[in-house]
């Protein structure tokens, strides 16, 4: 009897941690989905995330207000993304190289300025809020509805963004710009403004993911602590087939793997920790291969003009 109860507690704790770890990925994945839908490929998610993680932590630490930190992290990610927008939209530069440069920049910048804060811990973190009624549902309640306000924000984001993408005029225009910029322009949609805005938005959300990492999930600062999550988010965009609700499934799946490997290490399983640490990256690789195959079989494609700059004056 006690054995089953403790198993139950462990599983719920594990899945609850999976949601938190998944939240770090969910924000950036949704953001990148929208940037890519507009036709902008931003491979700098890792760089924007680490900027968000850093500024989020510093502001939360200095003001002792985690929510202010979260907003600062978002803004840091968004401003970083504007460099990419300038280069890919206005200057029509190579988006792959620009995205890589963004990652190099973010990691370098935070290493250069971050020394002062290394290993400091936040004293105030977002507190857990139980949602009335919903948190009483067996299993689902304690896993999804005994979380902090930022996790709830991510649920709202996923649903609202899904709605915007498929059910509003803004979404129609956004998708049109990514599929055929010239035709959208002819329809009167401002292609440049659309791409600027959604690239910025992608940065805001990448920053949000990074900030959630350093403010709630692991409330301290370490050099390079996003540890490749930006690249996992990029893979999740394909896994999600550019759909914000699918992104939730992908993010929690990977959050679950992350939480599981930490849990296994904590209880001292005999598998070497380096192999457990490898697991999320290995599975992401497998997932991206499988997802690519599925996307091809089901004739879903990436936005048609993804990564292709638009030039109004050229016929």
């Amino acid at each position, binding site marked *: 009897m006690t054995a089953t109860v403790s198993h139950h507690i462990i599983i719920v704790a594990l899945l609850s941690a999976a949601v938190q770890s998944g939240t770090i990925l969910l924000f950036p994945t949704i953001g990148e989905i929208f940037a890519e839908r507009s036709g902008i490929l931003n491979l700098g998610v890792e760089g924007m995330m680490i900027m968000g993680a850093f500024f989020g932590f510093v502001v939360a630490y200095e003001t002792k207000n985690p929510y202010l930190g979260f907003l600062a992290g978002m803004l840091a990610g968004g401003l970083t993304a504007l460099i990419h927008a300038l280069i890919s939209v206005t*200057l029509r530069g190579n988006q792959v190289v620009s995205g890589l440069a963004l990652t190099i*920049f973010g990691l370098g*910048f935070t290493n250069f300025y971050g020394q002062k804060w290394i290993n400091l811990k936040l004293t105030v973190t977002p507190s857990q809020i139980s949602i009335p009624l919903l948190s009483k549902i067996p299993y689902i309640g304690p896993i999804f509805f005994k979380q902090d306000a930022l996790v709830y924000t991510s649920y709202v984001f996923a649903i609202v963004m899904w709605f915007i993408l498929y059910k509003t005029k803004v979404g129609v225009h956004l998708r049109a710009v990514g599929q055929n910029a010239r035709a959208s322009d002819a329809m009167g949609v401002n292609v440049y403004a659309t791409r600027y805005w959604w690239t910025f938005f992608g940065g805001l959300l990448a920053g949000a993911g990074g900030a959630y990492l350093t403010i709630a999930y692991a409330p301290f600062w370490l050099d390079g602590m996003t540890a490749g999550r930006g690249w996992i988010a990029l893979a999740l965009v394909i896994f999600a087939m550019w759909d914000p609700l699918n992104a939730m499934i992908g993010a929690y799946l990977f959050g679950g793997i992350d939480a599981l490997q930490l849990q296994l290490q904590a209880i001292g399983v005999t598998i070497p920790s380096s192999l457990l640490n490898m697991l999320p990256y290995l599975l992401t690789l497998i997932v991206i291969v499988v997802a690519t195959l599925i996307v091809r079989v089901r004739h879903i494609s990436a936005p048609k003009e993804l990564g292709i700059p638009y030039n109004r004056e050229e016929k």
Partner: protein
Amino acid sequence: MIRFEKRESTPASLKIIIPIVSVAIGILIGAIAIMFKGINPLRVYNALIMGAFSSRYTFSETLVAATPLILISAGLIVVFKMNFWNIGAYGQYIMGAIFSSYFAIFWSPNIPKPIMLTVMVIAGMIGGALWALIPAFFKAFWEVNEVISTLLMNYIALFILKYFMYGTWRDPLSHGFPLSKPFPDNAQLPRIMYHTRVNLGLVFGIIAVIIVWFILKKTKFGYEITVIGENPRAARYAGMNVTKNILIAMAISGALAGLAGMVQVSGIIHLLQIKINPDYGYTAIIVAWLAYLDPIVAVFVSLFLGGLASGAYQIQITMQVPFGIVNVIESAILFALIGSEIFMKYKVKFEFGKRKEINKQEETL
């Protein structure tokens, strides 16, 4: 109004001016970043240049840092020519180091040196090539995005290295540190400059550059990858085998990154450990790009960025300036470089006249 007007042809001078201006912008942004930290940027840059080029020894350390960059960028140029984005040199370098170290650690120290080193060179190249071929296969047959796959392979390679270093490859005499036993003399690349760490790897680099230059300029394969890069559809119409070319190009790229990993462990560190500087794999991307994918120009860019890196190691110790400043400078150079590509294709026209006309029209309205 700013207007872009298409150029008939790119003036050759721009290909020199833009990289130089980009480097200047990078240095300027770096200076601003240093100033924000309350340090005098002139002092930092002075120490950095002294640390990279001032004496025979410091210059030799610049050559040591340039060697892996020369090797890796030569290979990257081959794949980048066909618009295949190998971001995985980091992992290919690690696999080259692991494969070649196996022989240094587990084979007899009595094997004649030329045989041992030949085996290690081949092993390193095979290790890097195999690691590169996995994402190449995914791309060639299933169109899996190679940027993400090669990058994920980097993390996997790093954890494989950690697995060995915390496992069976750890030297029992290392007091628990993740280090292999030191390489015996027969597994160490000969040094070619007295009292420095410059070794035969630099010669490998120069040979690699010549071979890559020859491949690109003089072979059918070199011609085909250039066409595939510029116009994949035309390439397919012309009957070029894109799949085969992706695999060959990635094998070359991975082999050279693997060789760089071999040179690092066999020529510089003389043992295998977790810190073998695979970041050269990322810096080499910047080298290739800054050289406009010209393997010979890439040698000089490697010397520049190698000097920047070795100088930065110095100031990190002497002035407590974190190494990240190099990445800030490098990324600013890259942003400036790709941001100015538009000037190679278009002329910028400032049309003040037209604005006045518009203003006049508005006034009359």
